[in-house]
């Protein structure tokens, strides 16, 4: 994943949004989906993805289904009922954040310089 706190802070929301749209997904599928949507600009690494998925599962936001696919076990994640509610809250929060940032960055009073 891009080494940016902005992306890291939004990772769980990205995962939950994808699961909301796709029903259930497995780890590798999530990384590929994100890569595809962002045209390769955002690459989620294993070190970021799995801890986020496991934390969401431990918090009760995700449920797990294990299936045998192509001679190996595959773990699918899907949103639980609380996970669905949490997704709505997090997306609203993220939208508010983006709106505020756009207002700030677009404001003529704010000059960003390094």
């Amino acid at each position, binding site marked *: 994943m891009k080494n940016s706190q902005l992306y890291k802070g939004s990772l769980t929301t990205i995962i939950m949004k994808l699961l909301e749209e796709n029903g259930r997904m497995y*780890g*590798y*599928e999530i990384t590929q989906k994100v890569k595809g949507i962002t045209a390769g600009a955002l690459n989620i690494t294993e070190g970021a993805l799995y801890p986020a998925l*496991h934390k969401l599962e431990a918090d009760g936001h995700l449920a797990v289904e294990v299936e045998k696919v*192509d*001679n190996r*076990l595959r773990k699918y994640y899907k949103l639980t009922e609380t996970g669905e509610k949490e997704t709505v809250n997090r997306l609203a929060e993220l939208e508010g954040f983006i709106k505020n940032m756009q207002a700030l960055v677009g404001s003529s009073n704010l000059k960003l310089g390094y």
Partner: protein
Amino acid sequence: MKLTAHQLKFIDNYLKYSGIEFMDIRYEMADHIASALEERDGDFYDEFKDYMRIHKAELLQSNRKFLRLATEKAYNRLFANAVKPWAIALVISLFLLLFLFKQYIPLENLSEDIQLAATVLFIAVIGSVFHKRLFRGNRFSVTAKLTSSFALLLYVCLVVIRVDKLLAGTILLPVYYTLMIFMMIVLMITNYQQERLYKLKYN
């Protein structure tokens, strides 16, 4: 390329010998690696080597975080069981039983027998852990954390500190035995429930 059963086994063994010992994380990582390799063309071993060169550090980092979460999960499940109505009834019954028992036979007289029983139990627990390690049985994270907590509790309280000797002759001795027996029962029940969950999920 489509991976063969032998190649999948190779990935699993590689992860196992790289320190990813628990089945519940290893199979997920193995599937991730296999899915990535299946999108590549070329020699399996060359592609695997190339993949691990880039991603191994990330996988090990993910494993470390998973272990921390497994410990947290084990203690949360233990606590959830310890505050259930049956557990509270058990702790009260155990205390009353031991308190009544103390009127007829001083608990201090049983100290050496309890010590011996605890040592045998400790050896059995450690033996089962080593048996699984030696014979490469599938080990799961939360049950492993519960078993190690169980062994540590037994070893520290009954073998190293000898709390029974410190509390001999006081009212705290039956309280101590009550809590020890209670903790062991709750640990065993939680471990059993977790084992069943794993069997349902992975078998």
